[in-house]
Structure formats: structure tokens, C-alpha cells
């Protein structure tokens, strides 16, 4: 009998192999142009947000919840940060922590709504998603806000050895999250609630608190994604976050998160995000229709789901 450890490890190994082989294949077919400094920078710069929102969804899934408000919250926080800096002169050192706090705060609200009303987390976050989309529009209307903090924008373009700072931020978030879930007491409580709520309760763990913590962390990670967007995007407008929802689910599912909660793989999620990014690069390289990306990702997610969850095998 293969233990979960081995299965996770093999899953992550498979993902890593796929990522490396895919990248190499793209390097070869592009005649090496993918190895240029600027190409590498672009590749990783566009990876930061997918990694962060994938992690935001992963935390919610870990406790057996889901977060539909990923994109709406990200767009709202990004626009709020942009407007605060550009129109209200809020300094960047205040705006960035403010954005993170705002994300976490809305996350806490999501969690509290789920716990207090005992309404399905799906519907709660569907409702907050709707509200946040409206708020985002209220903030920016049809305009694009771009004249804010040059410091932040420089940081968004900065790279160390051709690795963009924003990607390093995402990677750092992944490492911190992995440590939190593996080593911190609240992180373990969160996973215990997701893995066996009854056992958690009998061991004196509050499942309600775990749910709120998970949503708060989810919101915080979305806050980070919003800051990264502020830094690296040409500007923020009402379309920010519009295509995050599906992407946020794809990475954790392909990365091997048990959808019933309890088992997570941070590295698998990051690797899955890399692979999805590769599909996108390949699409651009062969000048294919952008729709191929969604189609391929959808098919892969369906395939992953069907292959790993044979009835009775679970």
C-alpha cells in the first residue's frame, strides 16, 4: 500500500518533471530565445499572481471550504490601494500594509459569516464576490488608475538575477504558508479541522476558529496578490481579478489538494501554477488562440479529478 506521503511526493515529482520537460521543450522549439534574460523575467513576472491566488484557494480548501470571492476581493483591494495612493495621497508604506489588512479583514468577514449563519461557504463567498465586484466598480468606474507610487512600480519591474521581485514575493508567501501549515500550531489545528472535524473537536480544537483563520489567511494572500498587481500591472481598473476565480482552483486541484480538506500540497500548487503558465507561453509561442489555454487547463483538471478520485479508491 502506497502511503500518502509517497503519493504526494510522487505527485510533486511528476509535476516537477512535467514542468522541466515542458520548459525544455519550449526552449528548444523557441530556438533558445526563452533563455534570454527578459524572457525569463516575463515568464516569472506573470507567475506571481497565479501562485498567490492558487495558495489563497488552497488555504480555504484545506479547511474544507471554498472561496469564490478570490478575484473580486483581489480586484477590490488592488483598486482600493491604487485609488488611495493616486487620489488621496496615501503613502506607499501605509497603502501596502493597508491593502494586506483589507484583504485579511474581508477574509475574516467571510469566515464569520460562514460560522455565524451556518450558510454554505459557497453561497456566502458568492454573495461577497458580488458585493466586492460592485464596490470595485464604485471605486474606479470605467477609468484606469495608474499614477501612483513610482517606488512600488519600480519594485514591480525590478529583478534580481532576472528573477522578478514580485515572483520572489509570491515564493516567499508560499514558503511562509508551507511553514505555517506544517509547523505552526494554528496551522495544524486548521488542517486537523479539515481532515477530521470530529477528531479535532474531541481534541479541544475549535473548528469554527479554524474556518475563520482559513478565510482570513485566504484574504491575506489575496491582499498580497493585489499588491503584486498594483506593482507590476500597468494600472488597475475594474477588470482586475475578473479571470482569477477559475485559475485559483486549477492550481490547487492539479497540484493535488484533497478536495475534501485536510491534505494540502503547497509545492504542488506552485508547480501546477508553473505548468499552467507554460501552457500559456506555449500558446503565445505558436501564436495559438488564447482559448486553448482554458481548454487545455479545463481538460487537465477534469482528467486529474477523474483519475485521482475513482469511486471507492478514496
Amino acid at each position, binding site marked *: 500500500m502506497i*502511503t500518502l506521503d509517497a503519493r504526494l511526493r510522487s505527485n510533486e515529482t511528476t509535476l516537477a518533471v512535467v514542468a522541466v520537460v515542458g520548459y525544455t521543450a519550449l526552449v528548444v522549439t523557441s530556438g533558445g530565445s526563452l533563455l534570454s534574460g527578459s524572457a525569463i523575467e516575463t515568464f516569472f513576472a506573470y507567475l506571481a499572481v497565479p501562485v498567490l491566488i492558487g495558495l489563497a484557494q488552497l488555504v480555504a480548501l484545506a479547511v474544507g471550504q471554498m472561496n469564490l470571492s478570490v478575484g473580486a476581493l483581489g480586484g477590490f483591494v488592488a483598486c482600493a490601494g491604487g485609488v488611495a495612493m493616486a487620489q488621496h495621497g496615501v503613502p506607499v508604506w501605509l497603502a501596502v500594509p493597508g491593502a494586506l489588512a483589507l484583504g485579511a479583514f474581508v477574509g475574516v468577514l467571510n469566515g464569520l459569516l460562514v460560522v455565524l449563519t451556518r450558510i454554505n461557504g459557497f453561497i456566502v463567498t458568492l454573495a461577497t464576490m458580488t458585493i466586492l465586484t460592485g464596490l470595485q466598480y464604485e471605486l474606479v468606474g470605467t477609468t484606469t488608475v495608474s499614477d501612483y507610487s513610482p517606488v512600488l512600480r519600480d519594485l514591480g519591474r525590478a529583478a534580481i538575477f532576472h528573477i522578478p521581485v514580485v515572483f520572489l514575493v509570491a515564493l516567499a508567501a508560499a514558503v511562509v504558508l508551507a511553514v505555517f501549515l506544517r509547523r*505552526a500550531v494554528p496551522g495544524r489545528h486548521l488542517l486537523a479541522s479539515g481532515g477530521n472535524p*470530529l*477528531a*479535532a473537536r*474531541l481534541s479541544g480544537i475549535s473548528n469554527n476558529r479554524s474556518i475563520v483563520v482559513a478565510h482570513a489567511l485566504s484574504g491575506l494572500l489575496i491582499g498580497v496578490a493585489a499588491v503584486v498587481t498594483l506593482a507590476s500591472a500597468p494600472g488597475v481598473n475594474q477588470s482586475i481579478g475578473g479571470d482569477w476565480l477559475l485559475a485559483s482552483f486549477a492550481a490547487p486541484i492539479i497540484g493535488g489538494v484533497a478536495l475534501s480538506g*485536510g491534505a494540502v500540497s503547497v509545492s504542488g500548487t506552485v508547480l501546477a501554477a508553473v505548468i499552467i503558465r507554460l501552457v500559456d507561453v506555449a500558446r503565445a509561442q505558436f501564436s495559438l488562440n488564447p482559448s486553448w489555454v482554458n481548454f487545455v487547463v479545463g481538460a487537465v483538471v477534469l482528467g486529474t479529478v477523474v483519475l485521482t478520485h475513482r469511486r471507492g479508491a478514496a
Partner: protein
Amino acid sequence: MLIAQDLVKLFPGVRALDGASLRIEPGSVHALLGENGAGKSTLIKILTGVYRPDGGTLSVGGVEVHLDSPQAASRAGVGVVHQERNLVPEFSIGENIVLQRLPAKGGLLDRAAIRAEAKRCLDLLDLDLDPDRRVRGLPVSQLQLIEVAKALSMDSSVLLLDEPTTASTPSEVERLFEVIRKLRDNGTAVLFVSHKLEEVYELCDTVTVLRDGVSVLESTPLADLAKQDLISAMVGRAHSAVDLPARPAVTAEPVLELSAVSTAAGHRDISLSLRPGEILGLYGLVGAGRSELAKAVLGLSAITAGELRVRGKAVNIKDVRDALRGHRIGYVPEDRKEEGLFLDQPVTKNIAVAVWDRLRTRIGGVSAKSERALAETYVERLGIRLSSTDKLVGELSGGNQQKVSLAKWLAAETEILIIDEPTVGIDVRTKAAFHELIWQLATDGLAVLLITSDLVEMVTLADRIVVMRDFHVCGEVVNDHEYEPTSHRVMGLIHQDAE
């Protein structure tokens, strides 16, 4: 040391405990025995802080305690190994053992401390398991030992084991017993809940027997008691058995026969036959495989050897639909809330659900009028008390719910009916009415396969009793409706030493 004195627990309409007492000494293993429904699980739930008693006192180590949560029980030094698995599968063995108070240093888990503490608990049990190994994928017997270790991590002076051996092989049971003996030798007071008398004799020093919520034997040394005494204490005397009219002798050919049937669920070599107008009892302890046998007859688990004959013909039943439509076999499940009824649906739909085909109007839809008429027929016939057949089944009392569950199969005009634990959680008066009803159905020609753990009920109703143990048949008793001799023969069959 744990002392429970005159514990009382009331549920609506039922006195689940009515003066239960026991006294577990340190360094001894104490057995808690009783038939199903005698109040064992209620007592366990009080001792572990899940229920609060309505009367009586509880003391641990000489101090009176009020256990109002599982945590309070655990703080008071009462550890428990539940029947259900209470481990987080993705966590390591060590982390599961110390989950109730994860040691941390500077906000992060102190892995060395987890390992050390887990090792300490595992060593107490002489268990050679790697604390860093993940729980998922471990065999069931090891999970159980890990739960014992988990209970020990809170420095429990009292350890409760709630039927720990139901799903274990003999060697696993032996391993568990070694562990329990070791704990006993270290001064722990152990309470061992079991159905299996030979295990009790092998392991325990003293025994308490519950019957109808009362301790009929309290903390008695086991050495003074013969097996017959224990059985007598458990089954007691028949209480006011209902006087049921004689039924005509059954002569018809069997409608349901199993010959040497083995199933994917684990049954071996099961043979029995059931005739129209007969009530065949299927008796056994929890875990003997009775409900599973019923489900195999319904096609829910595969028959791997032997033959299933319905009305003389060998058949292969695919699923419940096939059982019902092709063979007129129905099944009233044990767990009516989870498996039998649609609680949020009206009585009409619950009764008519299996026969909507028959209730069509000329244009093809289900006729609400015929549905109501059908429901009302059975509501009247079974004496279901309700204001309207539109009432949701979830709003009815337990007895009426059970009648609705039965009515579904009568409405479907089944000729063979498997009834599984029909009167669990039903008050005495309704119970008697239910017995008359089943009796009448058999008199009218229905073939009834009755599964019940209630010996009184079994002796009252069954014509013959097939006794099961560990997924095989260990004997058959012809029932003369005399409680004492029959119940002793049945219990004798169950508790005869396994070869």
C-alpha cells in the same frame, strides 16, 4: 479510581439510565456488559463528558467531578478509546497522540517534544511504531493502539475502551489485551466494554452488568461468576410478554432460501430458508453480519459462492429495484433516519415512493389523489397517528416514523420483508403494538426475516431463530416462545467457545 453512583439520564419518553453505578479500581480491568439498549453507551457518554447526567454523582480519584465537556473529562484523567476512529489521517502518529495539546516553541511545533512525548506513550504500551509515520494507510488494529496511546498522553488514570475488538483479528485482539494488561499493571483503572464473554473472562477482574438502565450486577469479582450467571443477569426474565394469538402452522414451500452462501461482505457458508407466513429471526451480536446479510440479499454486496433461491428459482439480484420489482423483496433498514426515511418529505411521498409507477393517471403523471388514498390506507391500517398525511416525516414520533418506514414496503406489496431492528429507540407501548403488527402481517402470509438484538422481541415474535456470529451461522433454535430456555439456548450458541 472512578466511582459512578446512581446515575440517571432521561431522554424524552425514556429513562436511559435509572440508577447505574460502578466502581473501577486502579490496577484492574473492569468489564461493562449489557444487551443492546441496556444503557451502556449512555453511561460511556456520561463518563466521557458528552452527556450530563440528570442525577447521581461521579468521582475520579476521590474527588467529585462534573464532566461537562470531553475536554473536562480528559482533564479529570478519564481517557477514552471511541468506537469511531478519531485520528487525523494526514497527520503523523506522534502528532495525533499529542493533538490535544500540541507542544510549541516560539510559535512553531516542537517536533522533538512531540516525538519524545509520543515515544513515551508508545513505550508505555510497548509499541514499536515510528512517531513520524503518517497515520493514513496504517492497519485498523494499529489505529486502535494509537488511540490508546492518545488517551494516555493526557496522563489518564482511567481508561475507557468502548467495544475495541469488534473489527479485529484474534492476533490483533491478543496484542490489544497485552497492552491493556500492561496498563493495568502500571496502575491504570481500565473499563472494558464488550459483547464477547470469552474476552471478558480472559481479560477482566470485575464486572458490572446493566439492564434497562440499572446496574443489576455491580462491580462484582468475575471469578465468582459462571458464564450462565452473567447471561442470566444480562437477559433477565421476560417482562410482560405480549399475548399473541396462535398462528397457523406454516407448511408452504420456502420463498427465500440461501444455501451455502458466501458474500463479498465476508459471510461464509450461510444457509437458511424462509416460508410465507413465517417469522424467521436472525440473532447475533453487533458486528455479526446480520444487516450486511440483508443487504447482500438485496444485491448491495455480491454473492461470491452458494445459491440464493427465491420461490424455488436460483436468482441473481442486481439491486434494490430488482429485488422489489422482480422478486417482491423489501427491506426496512435499522437506521430509519439515515437509510429508511426522507425526513424532510411528507408522509404521502414516503409511503408511495416505491410505487409511483402504479399511481399514474391516464396522461402518465403520478396522481396526487391516488397517492394520498394509498397513504391514508396504510396510515389507518398501521395505526399511524398524525393530523394529515402532508405532515413531514421528520415531525413524527419515532414509533410513527418506523411505521411509515414499514408502510412503504407494504404499499409496494412485498411478499418477503426483511425487518432490521424495528423497535430501537421506541417506547414500550408502541413496541407492543409493533409486535402485534408484525405478527399480524405474518398471519396474513407475509414472509418476515426479523433482525433484532432485543432478545425479548426475538423470543416474542420469531418462529425459528438463526444465530449468527462473525459472519457465519452458528446454530438454529426453534422458538417455543418461552423466554428463559430459549434465550439461554441462543446466548449459549453465541458464547460457546470459539474453536
